[in-house]
């Protein structure tokens, strides 16, 4: 489906200016979305910084019916595990097919949803509560994505944590489903504290890991053949009913399922969790090394609201945060999937809505090292400059292939090119490109490189226009959020 044309949108003047100039709304649109579009920037400018952000923090208020209608054509996304099992009964490779469908839907949503900030938070929590796997996990992850990550992405952290602890996909991926009193499995217990809540350095011990594992014995799922297959169930017969001590707090014997709930309360509301999530969110949206004043303030909001995620993100994406960290000057690298989706968005590209077409796009993100739901370890894809910043050729290859129409699943129609260049003086074509792709945030030097490339070609036709767009999307200026 085509993205809305941007021809009728007036964009702010000054396309060639460096990013040193402060424009909070432009910065917000870059950071809160999967890629700048002139249309979204114009809306945000018209609404004002706070109103646009607050609307994005209330995704139910945003009409996304076009995307929802497209997703409705993929019935598997709404099914329970039992329904999925029935739909794919006896089919070889069903797990891989389902994985591809979910991956493709992820890219379609990131690229085209009007609820862009929600999609960014889905990206955040998908990494935070990372789950990977084929076989049964492929089925269970469909439900986890819908009922855990997407449902609670801007909701209540304790509810999100609890939903994740009871998610069939998580229970299988980190082995708690088979953890029994006689021989507890520590895998989930450890990552629950290390990755999902406290973080290492918060002072918990190996003893705490073992005690939390004991508290969570018996947290499992209904087995295959049961009508509620894959859904959470507490099995009292495999639960360790003895007394436990977690983080110095005694948990009396005989607590049953409540042991685990008590642990989740302790962890969700622990100051180390508030601090750690605040820092992680600030890094995600603002900069690699956010000021401690900002992190402290965000952590305080998280604590004061008992883990209200929307309120916490509101504090992250605030003018005060932008001012404290001079965020408009901070270079934060888009990870490859974000770069790919962002390039499609800002160039005015369109996505296929067929599962097969979308899977071609998934394959491209895999080539870039960043396919959705494809990170094997429980820590999620890293969000670090050092990890991603040296692998550039796949970005250049993606931008080139996108504009060459060489990627099944995503195309940039000629109309989108006309919207960029028609009526623009030959010497200002690169500047127009900067405005269209970034709201004028490319550096003058990068703009000059694109203009020099255009000028070096004997004529300016559709092919050169496409190469110029691909080149602009390959340069450093377009790699930042």
């Amino acid at each position, binding site marked *: 489906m085509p993205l809305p044309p941007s021809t009728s949108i007036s964009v702010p003047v000054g396309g060639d200016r460096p990013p040193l100039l402060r424009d909070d709304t432009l910065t917000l649109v870059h950071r809160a979305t999967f890629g700048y579009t002139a249309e979204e920037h114009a809306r945000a400018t018209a609404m004002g910084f706070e109103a646009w952000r607050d609307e994005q923090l209330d995704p139910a208020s945003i009409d996304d019916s076009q995307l929802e209608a497209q997703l409705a054509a993929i019935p598997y996304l709404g099914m329970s595990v039992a329904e999925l099992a029935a739909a794919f009964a006896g089919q070889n490779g069903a797990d891989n097919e389902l994985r591809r469908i979910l991956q493709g839907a992820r890219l379609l949503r990131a690229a085209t949803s009007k609820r862009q900030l929600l999609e960014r938070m889905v990206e955040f929590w998908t990494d935070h509560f990372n789950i990977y796997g084929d076989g049964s996990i492929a089925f269970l992850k469909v439900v986890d994505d819908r009922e855990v990550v997407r449902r609670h992405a801007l909701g209540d952290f304790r509810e999100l944590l609890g939903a994740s602890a009871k998610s069939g996909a998580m229970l299988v991926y*980190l*082995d708690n489903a*088979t*953890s*029994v009193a*006689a*021989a*507890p*499995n*520590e*895998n989930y217990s*450890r990552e629950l504290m*290390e*990755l999902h809540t406290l973080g*290492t350095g918060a002072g918990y011990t*190996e003893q705490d*890991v073992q005690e939390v594992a004991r508290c969570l014995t018996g947290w499992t799922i209904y087995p295959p053949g049961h009508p509620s297959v894959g859904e959470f169930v507490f099995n009292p017969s495999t639960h360790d009913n003895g007394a436990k001590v977690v983080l110095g707090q005694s948990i009396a014997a005989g607590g049953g399922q409540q042991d685990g709930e008590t642990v989740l309360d302790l962890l969700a509301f622990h100051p180390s969790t508030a601090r750690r999530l605040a820092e992680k969110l600030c890094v995600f949206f603002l900069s690699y090394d956010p000021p401690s004043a900002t992190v402290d303030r965000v952590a305080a909001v998280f604590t004061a609201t008992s883990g209200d995620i929307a309120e916490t993100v509101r504090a992250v994406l605030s003018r005060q945060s932008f001012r404290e960290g001079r965020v408009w000057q901070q*270079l934060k*690298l888009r990870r*490859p999937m974000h770069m790919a989706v962002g390039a499609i968005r800002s160039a005015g590209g369109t996505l296929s809505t067929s599962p097969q077409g979308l899977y071609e796009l998934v394959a491209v993100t895999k080539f*870039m*090292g*960043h396919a959705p739901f494809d990170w*094997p*370890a429980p*820590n999620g894809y*890293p969000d670090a*400059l*050092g*990890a*991603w*910043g*040296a*692998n*550039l*050729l*796949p970005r*250049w*290859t993606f931008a*080139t*292939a996108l504009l060459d129409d060489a990627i099944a699943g995503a195309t940039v129609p000629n109309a989108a090119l006309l919207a960029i260049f028609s009526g623009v003086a030959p010497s200002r074509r690169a500047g127009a490109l900067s405005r269209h792709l970034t709201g004028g945030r490319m*550096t003058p*030097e*990068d703009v000059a*490189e*694109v203009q*020099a*490339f255009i000028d*070096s*070609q004997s004529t300016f036709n559709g*092919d*050169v226009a496409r*190469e110029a767009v*691909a*080149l602009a999307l*390959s*340069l*450093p*200026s377009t*790699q930042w959020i």
Partner: protein
Amino acid sequence: MKKDHSCEEYEHLSRRGFLGASAAAGAASLLFPRTAFAQGARGGLQRPCLVGIFLRGAMDGLSVVVPHGDANLYSLRPSLAVPAPGAANGALDLDGYFGLNPNASGLLTPFQSGGLAFVHACGSPDPTRSHFDAMRSMELGQPDQPATTVTSGWLARHLQAVSPAGTGPLRAIALDPLLPRVLAMAPATLPIPDPANFAFPGNPASASARRAAIDNAYARTIAPLAPAAAASLDSIDLLDTVDFTAYTPANGAVYPASKFGAVLRNTAAMIKADIGLEVAHHDYGGWDHHDEQGPLDGKLAGMLADLSAALEAFHLDMQGMEDRYVLYAKSEFGRRAAENGSGGTDHGSGGLMMVMGRGVQGGQVHGAWPTLAPAALDEGDLRVETDYRDVLAEVLTAGIGGTDLGHVFEGHTPTPLGVVL
């Protein structure tokens, strides 16, 4: 804590300064003994290529090189232990005490021919049982302590400490999409998952103009993008000189048709093409088997078969060229001595390291063995008797030919082991 040299390194490695980097490394090269090496075909030193394999997730060393002579193994792991040699599915005996998992039979020939060494009960002094803290500590090359300010990887510091072996743009390659922390801030280093497909994209007619624009633009941006862009553009031409497609392994070696098989095959092709490659690194993940571990017929068995088949092929392919590489494989830690209730094992301590290539004293299971006796265990885990840095120190000195160990493993005085001589 001494300051990290790495940011400074990056400054030197911006596009225009790239060739000047060898001059910057001049002081460090005084520490490097040049005597052992012939001139490489491209005019530089011919240094053996260090091939590093990180088995992420904590490989269960006790199921790979099985201490069948330690009766405690069978009481700790009633359902998981690999049986002693002679029993059904029994281990392949190595020395009367240790035996090889039958799924790793590909390692038997390299071991028995003296090319492959094991170091058991090996690991980090950092007591963490967190994968991610343990990996971080191992990649930085020192225990993770609050005072640690080092952010560069130990392999990166090795490359900083020695003069480049060749004149090429690619001293080190990570055969992965992401640069691992062990190579963070390494000079002339790129993550390239598939070096056989590393071409500048798009219309050939406009390629030089587009390349020039990219080259110019990235020279002005920040590290690591700036040096990576320069190295990428130069490596396109360099890797084009390696005929990966027609590469025929020597001695009839057959690599498995797996990702890891391709990694080692491509590594052999690059070493033989003499492109100045000093380090090839690969992350081989998936060893975290908390449930249904299956050392004989399950997940671990399948992974071991792949690992050992690829290592066997590489060993055979490089036979007669052992002076051209040193390979090591290791994990962040080993696994709990006792099995858990899920048919798997939780996080442990002492693990297993494998070393192959130049100077390696193969055919032996090195390292003191603490036993699995209850009193010998470290909180239920195989005790670390050998510091992984002691093995790597020998790899870097006797194996690769020298480095500045004080820079690479600052604060650690290696104990001689005799694994690489």
